[in-house]
């Protein structure tokens, strides 16, 4: 049994709560041994530190214990994950991709594009491998595609990378959800 689940929505749409509840539900339903939380948020200011703390506190309060793994950019794991007995929640793809963009900032444009593509390829490979090996994977991301294109090329580049990545994820997903104001719309 494996599953790839994609959840996206606007800011404060309730997607984290939904994703975490759903992960716990699947963890119990399929009698998995591990519940992983892959965190990609980087605390670059006080507000972000508070945000991360709030998310951590929420998970600590939970009856089921999460194992948190931090993945900022490199898709490399410090501990062995056994996909077949795990539920893996990754929050979120949006921050992971922006970390990758920051990380590669100093490179020349062509070199940078190649490097970024490499990161994305590694991510895709990892996701496919997990689902092949029986993992239940839930990916959370953001909706940032319904406003005017930016005057900054970096922002537009980021948006197009993320949009294309979302298309890929949705294509490979077993379930895909869009959240708006806590209302859940199932697309797939």
């Amino acid at each position, binding site marked *: 049994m494996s599953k790839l689940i994609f959840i996206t929505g606007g800011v404060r749409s309730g997607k984290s709560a939904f994703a975490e509840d759903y992960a716990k539900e699947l963890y119990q339903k399929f009698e998995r041994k591990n519940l992983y939380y892959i965190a990609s948020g980087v605390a670059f200011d006080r507000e972000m530190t508070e945000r991360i703390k709030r998310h951590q506190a929420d998970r600590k309060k939970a009856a089921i214990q999460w194992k948190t793994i931090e993945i900022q950019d490199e898709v490399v794991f410090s501990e062995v994950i056994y996909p077949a007995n795990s539920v893996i929640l990754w929050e979120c793809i949006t921050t992971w991709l922006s970390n990758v963009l920051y990380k590669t900032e100093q490179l020349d444009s062509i070199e940078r594009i190649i490097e970024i593509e490499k990161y994305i390829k590694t991510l895709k490979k990892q996701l496919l491998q997990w689902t092949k090996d029986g993992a239940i994977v839930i990916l959370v991301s953001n*909706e940032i*595609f*319904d*406003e*005017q*294109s930016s005057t900054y090329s970096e922002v537009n580049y980021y*948006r*197009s990378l*993320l*949009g*294309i990545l*979302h*298309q890929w*994820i*949705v*294509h490979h997903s077993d379930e*895909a959800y*869009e959240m708006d104001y806590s209302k859940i719309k199932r*697309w*797939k």
Partner: protein
Amino acid sequence: MQVIIGGANNGKRKFVKQQLMQHPSGKIHFFEGELPKKDSFSTEDILVIGNFKNIILPKVHLDEVVIAEEIFNRLIELNKQARVICICTDIGRGVVPMEKEERKLRDACGRLYQNLISESEDVIRIWYGLPEVLKGEGL
């Protein structure tokens, strides 16, 4: 007329291409950021028109309603000759832009989309490649 609507980078054009390839029904012409100028299309022709932002841009000094009407009327004209498919990129959900011109552009775009959607037989929203029929049938 048919409308494909969705956010940027959601695979709207890819969807249109896939659908038209599956059921070939005419000669496809793509127009990005400009309206077809000539008037000699036939019912065999399929006009896929996208990037309305750039179509509006040269008219941005005009009144919002006038901009939307001018473009809308031209599309109605074209739709009498050929099959028109409009690719509408939703740009109305972000923060109100600081620049006056950007605000106008956004407003005119929204106004035009309303007209197009009300006129079209089929309206399909695309979300990362997946279609949702909002009105009528599929493509």
